[in-house]
């Protein structure tokens, strides 16, 4: 009876589409929208696609296929899977679970920020358009005047950020509210594991594509859009000689596909065993990359529009200065004849023109003001949205899109925690699944309250750089080595042939055995070298800084740096610990057996 119970208990996807959408939703996240376009722009536009596609083909797809295959074959979450492959590698599962939990903490804080902006998008005018007045209504708040209204709204009214990481500040009640809302929204979708996730994913995975298309159509009609697109896609082949480009392409593909979190293994473990996982891997990988490229088009069209607006504002400011100084009738100098007028005035009265301190307006400088991450979403994009007619609609659409992108990735993070715990039977049998998922959400919410402090943004950056990077590379490397060399590549090939009906072809063999492990090792070593060279510093927002509004670059204090190292090491330390533990257990048994050599014992 026990066996039949176990076999009927494991939930499964309603249909193949749910499974594919969930994997795609997990892979397609915020990084596709705010990291890839930035990399494309910084690394020579169209030329960046070459290292990106090479990394996808030789590193991304093989790892993806492998994770989906082992999950589907062994039908367990990450801890169970690695325990099955080899008891010594059980630590891999624990490491994946730890990373998933830690990433889930700070990822949902970003969703809380997105919710905050979403709540504020229902006002006219948008609150980040104007600086607030100071106490006696004589002018604007000085911090806002020196930087800009969007910067002030982000750093002061949203984060209320402290000048450095040592000053913790207090819990910002509005952020706590937003974080609670974010966790409630996650909970309601995650409440029964894949049963509810599968329903929610129909909306959260498809809605971003709808919004991106709407934005694409709108953005292409804005003036200056073509400047942005040309800037994005003009290939600069020189950048390919820079090894950092290849490193960034490899890490981008790796993090973009959400490998080594254990979430993909968890999702595929709910599949029927006879399922073509090779095709699934190809679909998920290619859709992820296509989404990155598709998202960068409207993003850059809008950034081009913003640069154009700033450029025109700069030139109009110059025109107004000239008009007022020389008392020329207003609107006589226009953007078109500005050059002629300037020449004429320079010849007639050069000293007066010099006194005016006209700004040099260069479109290229404005286009170069790029940003990635939260800077792109909350500063650059919000500024662009102010100038678009119907700003509230675009702001609402944009933040809902970001939220659904992040939400579908959160599902994967949490499944990477839930499925191993369920498989390890750590859940007491009296506790229904709903309560257990609620406990996970509640505990994550409580720990994540550190990100709602005044210094929360700095801590989030630390988590992002130290947890969401190096441990994943280590885990992925050991994953592929375990499957190929410990489990045995031939056994693995047989499994895949049994599941999908076809033996993996030469491409998969070559990449699994040699190319991907080698690439991962190179990427890991290069990453460590590059990170070690950089000073551990962070950009602080300090209104009392001499060069404010430029970022105040501060080094991390010793205790913070210790925490950073701890965050990188703690998830992966389980790999050697579990291996050691199992090995000492094995040694003990071996020594015992040698001592008590019983000729009648059957179990030698």
């Amino acid at each position, binding site marked *: *009876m026990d*066996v039949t119970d176990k076999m009927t208990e494991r939930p499964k996807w309603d249909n193949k589409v749910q499974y594919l959408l969930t994997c795609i939703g997990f892979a397609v996240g915020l990084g596709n929208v705010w990291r890839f376009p930035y990399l494309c722009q910084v690394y020579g536009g169209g030329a960046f696609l070459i290292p990106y596609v090479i990394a996808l083909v030789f590193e991304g797809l093989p790892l993806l296929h492998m994770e989906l295959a082992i999950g589907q074959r062994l039908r367990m979450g990450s801890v169970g899977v690695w325990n099955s492959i080899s008891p010594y590698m059980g630590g891999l599962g624990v490491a994946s679970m730890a990373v998933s939990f830690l990433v889930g903490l700070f990822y949902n804080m970003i969703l809380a920020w997105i*919710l*905050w902006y*979403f*709540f*504020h998008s*229902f*006002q006219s005018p948008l609150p980040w358009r*104007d600086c*607030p*007045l100071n106490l006696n*209504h*004589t*002018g*604007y708040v000085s911090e806002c005047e020196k930087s800009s209204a969007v910067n002030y709204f982000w750093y002061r009214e949203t984060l209320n950020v402290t000048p450095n990481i040592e000053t913790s500040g207090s819990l910002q009640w509005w952020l706590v*509210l*937003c974080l*609670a*809302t974010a966790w*409630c*929204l996650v*909970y*309601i979708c995650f*409440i*029964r594991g894949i049963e*509810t996730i599968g329903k929610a994913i129909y909306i959260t995975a498809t809605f971003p594509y709808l919004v991106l298309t709407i934005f694409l159509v709108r953005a292409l009609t804005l003036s200056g859009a073509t400047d942005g697109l040309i800037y994005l896609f003009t290939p600069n082949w020189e950048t390919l000689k820079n090894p950092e480009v290849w490193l960034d392409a490899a890490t981008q593909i790796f993090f973009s596909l959400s490998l080594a979190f254990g979430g993909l293994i968890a999702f595929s473990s709910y599949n029927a065993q006879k399922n073509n996982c090779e095709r699934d891997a190809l679909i998920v990988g290619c859709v992820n990359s296509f989404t990155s490229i598709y998202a960068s088009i409207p993003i850059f069209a809008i950034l081009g529009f913003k640069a154009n607006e700033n450029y025109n504002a700069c030139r109009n400011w110059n025109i107004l200065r000239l*008009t*007022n100084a020389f*008392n*020329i*009738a*207003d*609107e006589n100098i226009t953007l078109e004849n500005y050059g002629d007028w300037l020449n004429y005035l320079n010849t007639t009265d050069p000293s007066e023109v010099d006194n005016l301190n006209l700004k040099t307006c260069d479109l290229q400088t404005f286009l170069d003001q790029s940003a990635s991450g939260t800077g792109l979403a909350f500063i650059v994009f919000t500024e662009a949205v102010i100038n678009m007619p119907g700003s509230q609609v675009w702001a609402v659409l944009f933040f809902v899109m970001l939220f659904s992108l992040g939400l579908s990735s959160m599902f994967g993070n949490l499944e990477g925690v839930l499925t191993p715990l369920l498989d390890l039977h750590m859940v007491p049998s009296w506790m229904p699944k*709903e309560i257990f998922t609620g406990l996970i959400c509640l505990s994550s919410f409580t720990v994540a309250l550190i990100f709602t402090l005044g210094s929360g943004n700095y801590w989030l950056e630390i988590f992002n750089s130290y947890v969401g990077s190096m441990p994943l590379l280590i885990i992925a490397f050991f994953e592929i080595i375990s499957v190929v060399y410990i489990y045995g590549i031939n056994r693995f090939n047989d499994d895949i042939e049994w599941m999908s009906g076809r033996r993996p072809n030469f491409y998969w063999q070559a990449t699994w055995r040699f190319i991907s492990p080698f690439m991962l090792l190179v990427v890991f070593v290069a990453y460590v070298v590059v990170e070690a060279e950089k000073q551990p510093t962070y950009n602080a927002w300090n209104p009392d800084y001499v060069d404010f509004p430029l970022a105040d670059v501060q080094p991390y204090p010793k205790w913070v740096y210790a925490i950073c190292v701890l965050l990188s090491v703690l998830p992966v330390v389980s790999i050697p610990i579990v291996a050691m533990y199992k090995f000492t257990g094995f040694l003990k048994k071996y020594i015992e057996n040698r001592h008590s050599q019983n000729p009648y014992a059957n179990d030698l």
Partner: protein
Amino acid sequence: MLEKILILLCLSSALAEQPCKPDASDGYKVRLSIKTALGDEAYVWNENEMFLFRATLAFAMRSHLNGQEFDVSNIIVCDETPRVTFWFVVTSPLNTSGLVDKGVVEEAIRMSRNRINSAFLLTDKTLEFIGITPTLTAPVNPDTPPWLIVFGVVMGAVGAGIIVVLVSPLVLKKRKKNEETDEDEEETGVKAVENGSTREGVYNMSFSDDERLTQM
């Protein structure tokens, strides 16, 4: 005789010109940007518009200093440019050669700024009095910030959703239980009636063996 009249005329005209000049200590510079504000519907700045300006300013002075009867002639304008900028000074009606203090003029303009702007279909930005900063509009502060309202709506919906999702399986279970107990009663009733059927009796479950796998 004629010479005396000529000298008197020159003196008076000289006196009349002196109060208004650029950078006058008690005067203000005005700058209008009509085309920027109105675009195609811009009106041409001419003598009549200037008259309206002087009249509006006289109105502002009258409103501020309730007793004194300012007239168009008390507002003296000079140094007009094609930009449409000019300087003006205000003479007191009680003493035509004396100028009204700068501070008093500023207060009068601040009080009636809105009326002056609307007379010309302009705004604080397009009708500038150089030296008089427009009072910044205090932002509208509603009692409940709108974001809290949206937050309340979202949280309410999510909370209701969570309760529905948690409670609905329990409700379904209860309903199923009720249906099952109904069915059981029905079945026993039917069995009692079915006498001539091919079935020989009630199937006794106690000896059935569900184990398909023989245990070693």
